[in-house]
Protein backbone atom coordinates (compact mmCIF):
# COMPACT_ATOMS: atom_id res chain seq x y z
CA UNK A 1 0.00 0.00 0.00
CA UNK A 2 2.02 2.89 -1.28
CA UNK A 3 0.41 6.16 -0.40
CA UNK A 4 1.97 9.54 -0.89
CA UNK A 5 2.55 11.83 2.05
CA UNK A 6 -0.08 14.38 1.19
CA UNK A 7 -2.71 11.66 1.25
CA UNK A 8 -1.57 9.93 4.37
CA UNK A 9 -1.68 13.08 6.50
CA UNK A 10 -5.07 14.29 5.22
CA UNK A 11 -8.41 13.60 6.88
CA UNK A 12 -10.41 13.84 3.69
CA UNK A 13 -8.76 12.55 0.55
CA UNK A 14 -9.90 12.54 -3.05
CA UNK A 15 -11.02 8.89 -2.93
CA UNK A 16 -12.99 9.50 0.27
CA UNK A 17 -14.75 12.48 -1.30
CA UNK A 18 -15.40 10.50 -4.44
CA UNK A 19 -16.95 7.71 -2.39
CA UNK A 20 -19.12 10.32 -0.63
CA UNK A 21 -20.25 11.66 -3.96
CA UNK A 22 -21.08 8.22 -5.35
CA UNK A 23 -22.70 6.70 -2.30
CA UNK A 24 -24.28 9.99 -1.27
CA UNK A 25 -26.20 10.27 -4.54
CA UNK A 26 -26.83 6.56 -5.03
CA UNK A 27 -30.59 6.60 -4.24
CA UNK A 28 -31.07 9.11 -7.09
CA UNK A 29 -29.58 6.95 -9.80
CA UNK A 30 -29.55 3.35 -8.67
CA UNK A 31 -33.04 2.63 -10.02
CA UNK A 32 -32.11 4.22 -13.33
CA UNK A 33 -29.39 1.59 -13.76
CA UNK A 34 -31.89 -1.16 -13.07
CA UNK A 35 -31.04 -1.86 -9.43
CA UNK A 36 -32.92 -0.97 -6.24
CA UNK A 37 -32.53 1.00 -3.05
CA UNK A 38 -32.29 -1.91 -0.66
CA UNK A 39 -29.24 -3.15 -2.54
CA UNK A 40 -27.52 0.14 -1.78
CA UNK A 41 -28.03 -0.36 1.95
CA UNK A 42 -26.83 -3.94 1.70
CA UNK A 43 -23.70 -2.80 -0.11
CA UNK A 44 -22.89 -0.14 2.48
CA UNK A 45 -23.38 -2.56 5.38
CA UNK A 46 -21.02 -5.07 3.81
CA UNK A 47 -18.59 -2.30 2.95
CA UNK A 48 -18.48 -1.38 6.63
CA UNK A 49 -17.96 -5.02 7.56
CA UNK A 50 -15.30 -5.46 4.88
CA UNK A 51 -13.36 -2.33 5.81
CA UNK A 52 -13.17 -3.54 9.40
CA UNK A 53 -12.25 -7.04 8.28
CA UNK A 54 -9.46 -5.69 6.10
CA UNK A 55 -7.72 -4.20 9.15
CA UNK A 56 -7.09 -7.80 10.01
CA UNK A 57 -6.55 -9.42 6.61
CA UNK A 58 -5.06 -6.72 4.41
CA UNK A 59 -3.23 -4.60 6.95
CA UNK A 60 -2.05 -7.09 9.55
CA UNK A 61 -1.98 -10.15 7.31
CA UNK A 62 -4.12 -12.19 9.69
CA UNK A 63 -6.60 -14.39 7.81
CA UNK A 64 -9.76 -14.87 9.83
CA UNK A 65 -12.07 -17.44 8.29
CA UNK A 66 -14.73 -17.15 10.94
CA UNK A 67 -15.55 -13.48 10.79
CA UNK A 68 -19.15 -13.94 9.73
CA UNK A 69 -19.81 -15.09 13.29
CA UNK A 70 -19.13 -11.58 14.53
CA UNK A 71 -21.49 -10.02 12.02
CA UNK A 72 -24.13 -12.41 13.35
CA UNK A 73 -23.33 -11.68 16.98
CA UNK A 74 -23.73 -7.97 16.26
CA UNK A 75 -27.14 -8.58 14.69
CA UNK A 76 -28.37 -10.66 17.65
CA UNK A 77 -26.97 -8.15 20.13
CA UNK A 78 -28.80 -5.34 18.34
CA UNK A 79 -32.06 -7.27 18.38
CA UNK A 80 -31.80 -8.34 22.00
CA UNK A 81 -30.87 -4.84 23.13
CA UNK A 82 -33.93 -3.56 21.31
CA UNK A 83 -36.31 -6.17 22.74
CA UNK A 84 -34.95 -6.53 26.24
CA UNK A 85 -33.42 -3.20 27.19
CA UNK A 86 -34.12 0.03 25.34
CA UNK A 87 -35.33 0.43 21.75
CA UNK A 88 -33.14 3.43 20.99
CA UNK A 89 -31.00 3.44 17.85
CA UNK A 90 -27.82 4.79 19.41
CA UNK A 91 -28.10 2.55 22.41
CA UNK A 92 -28.73 -0.57 20.33
CA UNK A 93 -25.91 0.17 17.88
CA UNK A 94 -23.57 0.82 20.80
CA UNK A 95 -24.69 -2.48 22.35
CA UNK A 96 -23.97 -4.31 19.09
CA UNK A 97 -20.50 -2.77 18.91
CA UNK A 98 -19.63 -3.37 22.56
CA UNK A 99 -21.00 -6.91 22.81
CA UNK A 100 -19.34 -8.00 19.56
CA UNK A 101 -16.14 -6.25 20.60
CA UNK A 102 -16.17 -8.19 23.87
CA UNK A 103 -16.71 -11.48 22.06
CA UNK A 104 -13.86 -10.49 19.76
CA UNK A 105 -11.60 -9.55 22.66
CA UNK A 106 -12.24 -12.86 24.41
CA UNK A 107 -11.70 -14.82 21.18
CA UNK A 108 -8.53 -12.88 20.41
CA UNK A 109 -7.01 -14.05 23.71
CA UNK A 110 -6.77 -17.49 22.13
CA UNK A 111 -5.56 -16.25 18.76
CA UNK A 112 -3.19 -13.37 19.19
CA UNK A 113 -0.05 -15.36 19.91
CA UNK A 114 -0.63 -17.55 16.87
CA UNK A 115 0.55 -17.16 13.30
CA UNK A 116 -0.27 -18.32 9.81
CA UNK A 117 -2.17 -21.54 9.39
CA UNK A 118 -2.63 -22.02 13.15
CA UNK A 119 -4.23 -18.62 13.42
CA UNK A 120 -6.48 -19.40 10.46
CA UNK A 121 -7.56 -22.78 11.83
CA UNK A 122 -8.38 -21.29 15.21
CA UNK A 123 -10.59 -18.65 13.59
CA UNK A 124 -12.50 -21.39 11.77
CA UNK A 125 -12.89 -23.29 15.02
CA UNK A 126 -14.22 -20.25 16.88
CA UNK A 127 -16.51 -19.30 14.00
CA UNK A 128 -17.98 -22.79 14.10
CA UNK A 129 -18.35 -22.72 17.87
CA UNK A 130 -20.33 -19.48 17.72
CA UNK A 131 -22.41 -20.78 14.85
CA UNK A 132 -23.19 -23.94 16.80
CA UNK A 133 -24.10 -22.02 19.95
CA UNK A 134 -26.36 -19.68 17.98
CA UNK A 135 -28.14 -22.62 16.36
CA UNK A 136 -28.70 -24.49 19.63
CA UNK A 137 -29.40 -21.68 22.07
CA UNK A 138 -32.87 -21.18 20.73
CA UNK A 139 -34.21 -19.34 23.80
CA UNK A 140 -32.05 -16.41 22.84
CA UNK A 141 -31.51 -16.68 19.09
CA UNK A 142 -34.61 -18.61 18.03
CA UNK A 143 -32.28 -20.93 16.15
CA UNK A 144 -33.09 -21.56 12.50
CA UNK A 145 -36.18 -19.33 12.63
CA UNK A 146 -34.14 -16.27 13.45
CA UNK A 147 -34.81 -13.36 15.74
CA UNK A 148 -37.77 -11.79 13.98
CA UNK A 149 -39.40 -8.36 13.95
CA UNK A 150 -36.36 -6.27 14.69
CA UNK A 151 -37.47 -2.70 14.05
CA UNK A 152 -35.66 -0.04 12.03
CA UNK A 153 -35.31 2.38 14.89
CA UNK A 154 -35.62 6.10 14.18
CA UNK A 155 -32.60 8.38 14.39
CA UNK A 156 -33.01 10.57 17.47
CA UNK A 157 -31.02 13.78 17.57
CA UNK A 158 -32.27 15.75 20.56
CA UNK A 159 -35.83 16.78 19.77
CA UNK A 160 -35.52 15.70 16.14
CA UNK A 161 -36.59 12.21 15.16
CA UNK A 162 -35.89 10.89 11.66
CA UNK A 163 -37.61 7.70 10.52
CA UNK A 164 -35.56 4.90 8.94
CA UNK A 165 -38.37 2.56 8.01
CA UNK A 166 -38.20 3.29 4.28
CA UNK A 167 -35.32 1.89 2.27
CA UNK A 168 -34.04 5.29 1.17
CA UNK A 169 -34.20 6.70 4.70
CA UNK A 170 -32.48 3.62 6.02
CA UNK A 171 -29.89 3.87 3.27
CA UNK A 172 -28.94 7.34 4.45
CA UNK A 173 -28.49 6.08 7.99
CA UNK A 174 -26.02 3.50 6.64
CA UNK A 175 -24.37 6.20 4.58
CA UNK A 176 -23.92 8.43 7.64
CA UNK A 177 -22.31 5.55 9.54
CA UNK A 178 -20.09 4.81 6.55
CA UNK A 179 -19.11 8.44 6.14
CA UNK A 180 -17.82 8.67 9.71
CA UNK A 181 -16.27 5.22 9.84
CA UNK A 182 -14.30 5.56 6.63
CA UNK A 183 -12.53 8.66 7.93
CA UNK A 184 -11.81 7.02 11.28
CA UNK A 185 -10.37 3.93 9.57
CA UNK A 186 -8.39 5.99 7.07
CA UNK A 187 -6.75 7.94 9.89
CA UNK A 188 -6.19 4.77 11.84
CA UNK A 189 -4.48 2.97 8.99
CA UNK A 190 -2.18 5.94 8.43
CA UNK A 191 -1.33 6.41 12.11
CA UNK A 192 1.66 4.84 13.83
CA UNK A 193 -0.72 2.08 14.92
CA UNK A 194 -1.57 1.30 11.29
CA UNK A 195 2.10 1.43 10.40
CA UNK A 196 2.85 -1.20 13.05
CA UNK A 197 0.01 -3.41 11.77
CA UNK A 198 1.44 -3.30 8.27
CA UNK A 199 4.87 -4.10 9.63
CA UNK A 200 3.44 -7.14 11.44
CA UNK A 201 2.10 -8.39 8.12
CA UNK A 202 5.53 -8.08 6.56
CA UNK A 203 7.68 -9.43 9.35
CA UNK A 204 6.23 -10.22 12.71
CA UNK A 205 9.52 -11.30 14.22
CA UNK A 206 11.27 -8.08 13.37
CA UNK A 207 8.45 -6.00 14.80
CA UNK A 208 9.02 -7.72 18.13
CA UNK A 209 12.76 -7.11 17.84
CA UNK A 210 12.38 -3.39 17.34
CA UNK A 211 10.41 -3.31 20.55
CA UNK A 212 6.69 -3.73 19.90
CA UNK A 213 4.45 -6.08 21.89
CA UNK A 214 3.18 -7.91 18.82
CA UNK A 215 0.65 -10.05 20.67
CA UNK A 216 -1.04 -6.98 22.10
CA UNK A 217 -1.26 -5.40 18.65
CA UNK A 218 -2.77 -8.54 17.18
CA UNK A 219 -5.22 -8.81 20.04
CA UNK A 220 -6.28 -5.18 19.69
CA UNK A 221 -6.75 -5.26 15.93
CA UNK A 222 -8.79 -8.45 16.12
CA UNK A 223 -10.99 -6.87 18.76
CA UNK A 224 -11.32 -3.70 16.73
CA UNK A 225 -12.31 -5.50 13.56
CA UNK A 226 -14.90 -7.48 15.54
CA UNK A 227 -16.33 -4.25 16.96
CA UNK A 228 -16.72 -2.91 13.41
CA UNK A 229 -18.34 -6.22 12.41
CA UNK A 230 -20.75 -5.67 15.30
CA UNK A 231 -21.64 -2.25 13.95
CA UNK A 232 -22.31 -3.75 10.53
CA UNK A 233 -24.29 -6.53 12.22
CA UNK A 234 -26.51 -4.03 14.00
CA UNK A 235 -27.32 -2.29 10.73
CA UNK A 236 -27.80 -5.65 9.05
CA UNK A 237 -30.38 -6.64 11.66
CA UNK A 238 -32.31 -3.47 10.88
CA UNK A 239 -31.93 -3.96 7.12
CA UNK A 240 -33.32 -7.49 7.27
CA UNK A 241 -35.66 -6.66 10.14
CA UNK A 242 -34.38 -9.74 11.84
CA UNK A 243 -31.20 -11.55 12.88
CA UNK A 244 -30.49 -14.84 11.15
CA UNK A 245 -27.92 -17.49 11.67
CA UNK A 246 -26.86 -18.00 8.06
CA UNK A 247 -24.33 -15.14 7.99
CA UNK A 248 -22.51 -16.89 10.83
CA UNK A 249 -21.85 -19.95 8.70
CA UNK A 250 -18.48 -20.92 7.33
CA UNK A 251 -19.73 -20.14 3.83
CA UNK A 252 -20.52 -16.52 4.61
CA UNK A 253 -17.25 -16.15 6.46
CA UNK A 254 -15.61 -17.33 3.28
CA UNK A 255 -17.52 -14.86 1.15
CA UNK A 256 -16.21 -11.86 3.07
CA UNK A 257 -12.66 -13.14 2.50
CA UNK A 258 -13.47 -13.52 -1.18
CA UNK A 259 -14.90 -10.01 -1.47
CA UNK A 260 -11.89 -8.43 0.20
CA UNK A 261 -9.38 -10.39 -1.85
CA UNK A 262 -11.13 -9.80 -5.17
CA UNK A 263 -11.22 -6.09 -4.43
CA UNK A 264 -7.55 -6.00 -3.51
CA UNK A 265 -7.54 -5.54 0.25
CA UNK A 266 -3.88 -6.48 0.39
CA UNK A 267 -2.75 -3.53 -1.69
CA UNK A 268 -5.34 -0.86 -1.06
CA UNK A 269 -7.54 0.66 1.59
CA UNK A 270 -10.28 0.72 -1.05
CA UNK A 271 -9.97 -2.91 -2.05
CA UNK A 272 -12.78 -4.08 0.25
CA UNK A 273 -15.14 -1.42 -1.12
CA UNK A 274 -14.50 -2.46 -4.72
CA UNK A 275 -14.86 -6.12 -3.82
CA UNK A 276 -18.18 -5.69 -2.04
CA UNK A 277 -19.64 -3.60 -4.86
CA UNK A 278 -18.49 -6.14 -7.44
CA UNK A 279 -19.93 -9.02 -5.45
CA UNK A 280 -23.39 -7.53 -5.05
CA UNK A 281 -23.60 -6.18 -8.56
CA UNK A 282 -22.51 -9.56 -9.89
CA UNK A 283 -25.09 -11.27 -7.70
CA UNK A 284 -27.90 -9.14 -9.06
CA UNK A 285 -26.78 -8.72 -12.64
CA UNK A 286 -25.33 -12.19 -13.30
CA UNK A 287 -27.94 -13.64 -10.97
CA UNK A 288 -30.69 -12.32 -13.26
CA UNK A 289 -29.36 -14.50 -16.08
CA UNK A 290 -28.22 -17.61 -14.33
CA UNK A 291 -28.79 -19.50 -11.13
CA UNK A 292 -25.16 -20.48 -11.13
CA UNK A 293 -23.84 -16.95 -10.88
CA UNK A 294 -21.72 -17.81 -7.83
CA UNK A 295 -19.89 -20.34 -9.96
CA UNK A 296 -19.03 -17.63 -12.47
CA UNK A 297 -18.05 -15.31 -9.67
CA UNK A 298 -15.85 -18.05 -8.24
CA UNK A 299 -14.18 -18.55 -11.61
CA UNK A 300 -13.57 -14.83 -11.83
CA UNK A 301 -12.00 -15.03 -8.40
CA UNK A 302 -9.74 -17.87 -9.51
CA UNK A 303 -8.67 -16.02 -12.61
CA UNK A 304 -7.84 -12.98 -10.53
CA UNK A 305 -5.87 -14.98 -7.99
CA UNK A 306 -3.86 -16.55 -10.80
CA UNK A 307 -3.22 -13.48 -12.92
CA UNK A 308 -3.57 -10.52 -10.58
CA UNK A 309 -3.45 -11.49 -6.91
CA UNK A 310 -3.56 -7.80 -5.98
CA UNK A 311 -7.19 -7.74 -7.08
CA UNK A 312 -9.19 -4.92 -8.61
CA UNK A 313 -7.29 -2.29 -6.67
CA UNK A 314 -4.05 -3.74 -8.04
CA UNK A 315 -5.31 -3.50 -11.62
CA UNK A 316 -6.36 0.08 -10.97
CA UNK A 317 -2.97 0.99 -9.49
CA UNK A 318 -1.22 -0.48 -12.53
CA UNK A 319 -3.40 1.59 -14.86
CA UNK A 320 -2.76 4.80 -12.93
CA UNK A 321 0.95 4.14 -12.81
CA UNK A 322 1.16 3.36 -16.50
CA UNK A 323 -0.77 6.42 -17.63
CA UNK A 324 1.11 8.65 -15.20
CA UNK A 325 4.52 7.54 -16.42
CA UNK A 326 3.42 7.77 -20.04
CA UNK A 327 2.17 11.30 -19.52
CA UNK A 328 5.39 12.41 -17.91
CA UNK A 329 7.42 10.45 -20.47
CA UNK A 330 9.63 9.54 -17.57
CA UNK A 331 10.44 6.18 -16.09
CA UNK A 332 8.32 5.27 -13.06
CA UNK A 333 9.86 6.25 -9.71
CA UNK A 334 12.96 4.31 -8.77
CA UNK A 335 11.11 2.34 -6.12
CA UNK A 336 8.90 0.85 -8.79
CA UNK A 337 11.21 0.74 -11.76
CA UNK A 338 13.68 -1.56 -10.12
CA UNK A 339 11.08 -3.57 -8.20
Amino acid at each position, binding site marked *: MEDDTKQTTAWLTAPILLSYALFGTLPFWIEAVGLYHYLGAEILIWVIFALGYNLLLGYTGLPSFGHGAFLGIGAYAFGLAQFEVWPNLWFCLAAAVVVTGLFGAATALFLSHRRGIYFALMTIAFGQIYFFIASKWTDVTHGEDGLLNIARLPVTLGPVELPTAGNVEFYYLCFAVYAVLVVVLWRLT*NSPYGRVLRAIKQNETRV*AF*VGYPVTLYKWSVFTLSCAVAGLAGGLFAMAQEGAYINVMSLQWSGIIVLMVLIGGGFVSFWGPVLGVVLYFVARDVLGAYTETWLLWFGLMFMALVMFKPQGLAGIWQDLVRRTASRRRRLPAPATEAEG
Partner: protein
Amino acid sequence: MALFEARGLHKRFGAQVVLEEINLAFEAGQLSGIMGPNGAGKTTCFNVLTGRYKPDRGSVRFDGADITGMAPHRIVARGISRSFQIMNLFDEYSALDNVVIALPQVRARGFSVTHALDADTDARDRAEAVLDRVGLKGRERVNVRSLSYGERRALEIGVALATEPRLLFVDEPTAGLGTGATARLAELIRELKRHTTIVMIEHDMRFLFSLADRISVIHWGQVIAEGTPEELRENPWVRRSNLGGLA
Protein backbone atom coordinates in the same frame (compact mmCIF):
# COMPACT_ATOMS: atom_id res chain seq x y z
CA MET B 1 30.45 -6.45 37.02
CA ALA B 2 29.87 -7.14 33.36
CA LEU B 3 27.10 -5.27 31.56
CA PHE B 4 25.68 -8.54 30.27
CA GLU B 5 26.10 -11.97 31.68
CA ALA B 6 24.81 -15.42 30.74
CA ARG B 7 25.20 -18.33 33.18
CA GLY B 8 24.73 -22.02 32.49
CA LEU B 9 22.47 -21.62 29.45
CA HIS B 10 21.07 -24.86 28.13
CA LYS B 11 18.80 -25.15 25.12
CA ARG B 12 17.48 -28.14 23.28
CA PHE B 13 15.10 -28.59 20.35
CA GLY B 14 13.35 -31.88 20.95
CA ALA B 15 16.08 -34.41 21.48
CA GLN B 16 18.79 -32.26 19.91
CA VAL B 17 20.85 -30.36 22.46
CA VAL B 18 22.06 -27.16 20.78
CA LEU B 19 23.40 -25.26 23.77
CA GLU B 20 25.00 -27.54 26.33
CA GLU B 21 26.22 -25.02 28.86
CA ILE B 22 26.99 -21.45 27.83
CA ASN B 23 28.72 -18.97 30.12
CA LEU B 24 29.44 -15.55 28.67
CA ALA B 25 30.13 -12.06 30.01
CA PHE B 26 30.29 -8.88 27.95
CA GLU B 27 31.91 -5.75 29.36
CA ALA B 28 30.47 -2.29 28.73
CA GLY B 29 32.24 -0.36 26.01
CA GLN B 30 33.86 -3.41 24.45
CA LEU B 31 33.32 -5.29 21.25
CA SER B 32 33.00 -8.98 22.07
CA GLY B 33 33.39 -11.42 19.23
CA ILE B 34 31.88 -14.86 18.94
CA MET B 35 33.20 -17.45 16.52
CA GLY B 36 32.80 -21.13 15.94
CA PRO B 37 32.06 -23.64 13.20
CA ASN B 38 28.77 -23.87 11.30
CA GLY B 39 25.98 -25.27 13.39
CA ALA B 40 27.87 -24.69 16.64
CA GLY B 41 24.89 -22.90 18.17
CA LYS B 42 26.01 -19.27 17.83
CA THR B 43 22.77 -17.95 16.38
CA THR B 44 20.77 -20.05 18.82
CA CYS B 45 22.79 -18.50 21.59
CA PHE B 46 21.84 -15.00 20.31
CA ASN B 47 18.24 -16.11 20.10
CA VAL B 48 18.27 -17.14 23.74
CA LEU B 49 20.11 -14.01 24.84
CA THR B 50 17.68 -11.66 23.06
CA GLY B 51 14.44 -13.35 24.05
CA ARG B 52 13.51 -15.18 20.87
CA TYR B 53 13.74 -18.51 22.69
CA LYS B 54 13.52 -19.26 26.39
CA PRO B 55 16.46 -21.27 27.70
CA ASP B 56 15.70 -24.63 29.27
CA ARG B 57 18.14 -23.81 32.08
CA GLY B 58 20.38 -20.94 33.04
CA SER B 59 20.06 -17.21 33.47
CA VAL B 60 20.68 -14.00 31.55
CA ARG B 61 21.40 -10.71 33.30
CA PHE B 62 21.64 -7.28 31.75
CA ASP B 63 22.67 -4.19 33.66
CA GLY B 64 22.05 -5.90 37.00
CA ALA B 65 18.55 -7.18 36.17
CA ASP B 66 17.45 -10.72 35.40
CA ILE B 67 16.05 -10.79 31.84
CA THR B 68 15.90 -14.58 31.41
CA GLY B 69 12.99 -15.62 29.20
CA MET B 70 11.71 -12.08 28.85
CA ALA B 71 9.78 -11.23 25.66
CA PRO B 72 11.87 -9.56 22.92
CA HIS B 73 10.02 -6.24 23.10
CA ARG B 74 10.77 -5.94 26.82
CA ILE B 75 14.42 -6.70 26.23
CA VAL B 76 14.53 -4.05 23.50
CA ALA B 77 12.95 -1.56 25.88
CA ARG B 78 15.87 -2.14 28.25
CA GLY B 79 18.35 -1.15 25.58
CA ILE B 80 19.31 -4.30 23.71
CA SER B 81 18.95 -4.68 19.99
CA ARG B 82 20.07 -7.10 17.32
CA SER B 83 20.55 -7.63 13.63
CA PHE B 84 19.91 -10.94 11.94
CA GLN B 85 22.06 -13.37 10.00
CA ILE B 86 19.22 -13.99 7.58
CA MET B 87 17.83 -10.63 6.64
CA ASN B 88 14.74 -9.62 8.45
CA LEU B 89 13.42 -6.39 6.98
CA PHE B 90 10.03 -4.89 6.11
CA ASP B 91 10.01 -5.67 2.41
CA GLU B 92 7.09 -3.43 1.43
CA TYR B 93 8.58 -0.39 3.12
CA SER B 94 11.18 2.05 1.93
CA ALA B 95 14.57 2.09 3.63
CA LEU B 96 13.41 5.15 5.54
CA ASP B 97 10.20 3.54 6.80
CA ASN B 98 12.12 0.48 7.94
CA VAL B 99 14.14 2.73 10.20
CA VAL B 100 11.31 5.06 11.24
CA ILE B 101 9.31 2.26 12.80
CA ALA B 102 12.29 1.21 14.91
CA LEU B 103 12.80 4.66 16.49
CA PRO B 104 12.01 4.80 20.22
CA GLN B 105 9.95 7.96 19.76
CA VAL B 106 7.73 6.21 17.22
CA ARG B 107 7.50 3.11 19.37
CA ALA B 108 6.35 5.26 22.30
CA ARG B 109 3.34 6.32 20.22
CA GLY B 110 2.76 2.90 18.69
CA PHE B 111 -0.85 2.86 19.80
CA SER B 112 -1.54 6.40 18.67
CA VAL B 113 -4.26 6.57 16.07
CA THR B 114 -4.13 10.33 15.54
CA HIS B 115 -0.45 11.11 15.09
CA ALA B 116 0.47 11.64 11.43
CA LEU B 117 3.77 9.85 11.00
CA ASP B 118 4.44 11.20 7.52
CA ALA B 119 4.30 14.74 8.87
CA ASP B 120 6.66 13.94 11.76
CA THR B 121 9.79 15.73 10.56
CA ASP B 122 11.71 14.94 13.73
CA ALA B 123 11.27 11.20 13.22
CA ARG B 124 12.24 11.59 9.59
CA ASP B 125 15.38 13.55 10.42
CA ARG B 126 16.47 10.95 12.93
CA ALA B 127 15.81 8.10 10.54
CA GLU B 128 17.75 9.89 7.80
CA ALA B 129 20.64 10.34 10.22
CA VAL B 130 20.65 6.60 10.94
CA LEU B 131 20.65 5.80 7.21
CA ASP B 132 23.47 8.25 6.68
CA ARG B 133 25.47 6.49 9.39
CA VAL B 134 25.14 3.08 7.74
CA GLY B 135 26.00 4.52 4.32
CA LEU B 136 22.53 4.66 2.80
CA LYS B 137 22.27 8.39 2.27
CA GLY B 138 20.36 9.12 -0.90
CA ARG B 139 18.62 5.74 -0.79
CA GLU B 140 15.96 6.74 1.77
CA ARG B 141 12.96 6.44 -0.52
CA VAL B 142 14.01 3.25 -2.23
CA ASN B 143 11.90 0.19 -1.56
CA VAL B 144 13.75 -2.53 0.32
CA ARG B 145 13.23 -5.00 -2.50
CA SER B 146 15.06 -2.66 -4.86
CA LEU B 147 18.12 -2.28 -2.64
CA SER B 148 21.23 -4.26 -3.46
CA TYR B 149 22.27 -7.13 -1.23
CA GLY B 150 24.98 -5.06 0.41
CA GLU B 151 22.59 -2.18 1.00
CA ARG B 152 20.12 -4.48 2.65
CA ARG B 153 22.82 -5.79 4.96
CA ALA B 154 23.61 -2.20 5.91
CA LEU B 155 19.92 -1.50 6.47
CA GLU B 156 19.69 -4.61 8.64
CA ILE B 157 22.17 -2.93 10.99
CA GLY B 158 20.46 0.44 10.58
CA VAL B 159 17.14 -0.95 11.80
CA ALA B 160 18.85 -2.44 14.84
CA LEU B 161 20.66 0.85 15.52
CA ALA B 162 17.49 2.91 15.19
CA THR B 163 16.21 1.48 18.47
CA GLU B 164 19.14 3.33 20.11
CA PRO B 165 20.56 0.33 21.94
CA ARG B 166 23.19 0.34 24.66
CA LEU B 167 24.06 -3.21 23.68
CA LEU B 168 23.96 -4.35 20.07
CA PHE B 169 24.12 -7.95 18.88
CA VAL B 170 25.14 -8.46 15.25
CA ASP B 171 25.01 -11.88 13.61
CA GLU B 172 27.53 -12.37 10.76
CA PRO B 173 27.32 -8.87 9.29
CA THR B 174 29.86 -9.60 6.54
CA ALA B 175 28.08 -12.68 5.19
CA GLY B 176 28.00 -12.43 1.41
CA LEU B 177 29.74 -9.05 1.22
CA GLY B 178 32.60 -8.28 -1.16
CA THR B 179 35.89 -6.80 0.02
CA GLY B 180 34.87 -3.19 -0.55
CA ALA B 181 31.63 -3.54 1.38
CA THR B 182 33.41 -5.45 4.13
CA ALA B 183 35.91 -2.63 4.53
CA ARG B 184 33.13 -0.06 4.78
CA LEU B 185 31.37 -2.23 7.33
CA ALA B 186 34.55 -2.43 9.42
CA GLU B 187 34.65 1.36 9.32
CA LEU B 188 31.04 1.58 10.50
CA ILE B 189 31.55 -0.90 13.32
CA ARG B 190 34.67 0.87 14.49
CA GLU B 191 32.63 4.07 14.66
CA LEU B 192 29.70 2.40 16.47
CA LYS B 193 32.06 0.90 19.00
CA ARG B 194 32.78 4.34 20.38
CA HIS B 195 29.26 4.70 21.80
CA THR B 196 27.77 1.21 21.90
CA THR B 197 28.68 -2.10 23.45
CA ILE B 198 28.70 -4.67 20.66
CA VAL B 199 28.60 -8.45 20.49
CA MET B 200 29.36 -9.82 17.04
CA ILE B 201 29.20 -13.31 15.57
CA GLU B 202 31.60 -13.48 12.64
CA HIS B 203 33.16 -16.09 10.39
CA ASP B 204 35.58 -13.69 8.72
CA MET B 205 38.41 -13.94 11.21
CA ARG B 206 40.53 -11.17 9.79
CA PHE B 207 37.54 -8.86 10.19
CA LEU B 208 36.74 -10.09 13.68
CA PHE B 209 40.29 -10.09 15.02
CA SER B 210 40.86 -6.53 13.87
CA LEU B 211 37.79 -5.22 15.67
CA ALA B 212 37.19 -7.32 18.77
CA ASP B 213 38.46 -6.61 22.27
CA ARG B 214 37.66 -10.14 23.42
CA ILE B 215 36.59 -13.25 21.57
CA SER B 216 34.73 -16.37 22.66
CA VAL B 217 34.83 -19.56 20.64
CA ILE B 218 31.65 -21.65 20.72
CA HIS B 219 31.73 -25.29 19.74
CA TRP B 220 29.32 -28.16 20.55
CA GLY B 221 27.14 -25.70 22.44
CA GLN B 222 29.88 -24.65 24.82
CA VAL B 223 32.43 -21.88 25.09
CA ILE B 224 35.64 -23.76 24.41
CA ALA B 225 38.04 -20.83 24.42
CA GLU B 226 38.03 -17.20 25.40
CA GLY B 227 40.49 -14.33 25.41
CA THR B 228 41.90 -11.33 23.60
CA PRO B 229 42.62 -11.71 19.90
CA GLU B 230 46.32 -12.08 20.73
CA GLU B 231 45.65 -14.84 23.23
CA LEU B 232 43.37 -16.64 20.83
CA ARG B 233 45.89 -16.62 18.01
CA GLU B 234 47.84 -19.09 20.17
CA ASN B 235 44.79 -21.26 20.77
CA PRO B 236 45.08 -24.74 19.23
CA TRP B 237 41.50 -24.82 17.94
CA VAL B 238 41.85 -21.43 16.30
CA ARG B 239 45.20 -22.45 14.84
CA ARG B 240 43.74 -25.62 13.39
CA SER B 241 40.74 -23.88 11.83
CA ASN B 242 40.89 -21.91 8.60
CA LEU B 243 42.64 -18.82 9.87
CA GLY B 244 44.54 -18.45 6.65
CA GLY B 245 47.04 -15.65 6.68
CA LEU B 246 46.08 -14.57 10.16
CA ALA B 247 47.96 -17.17 12.20
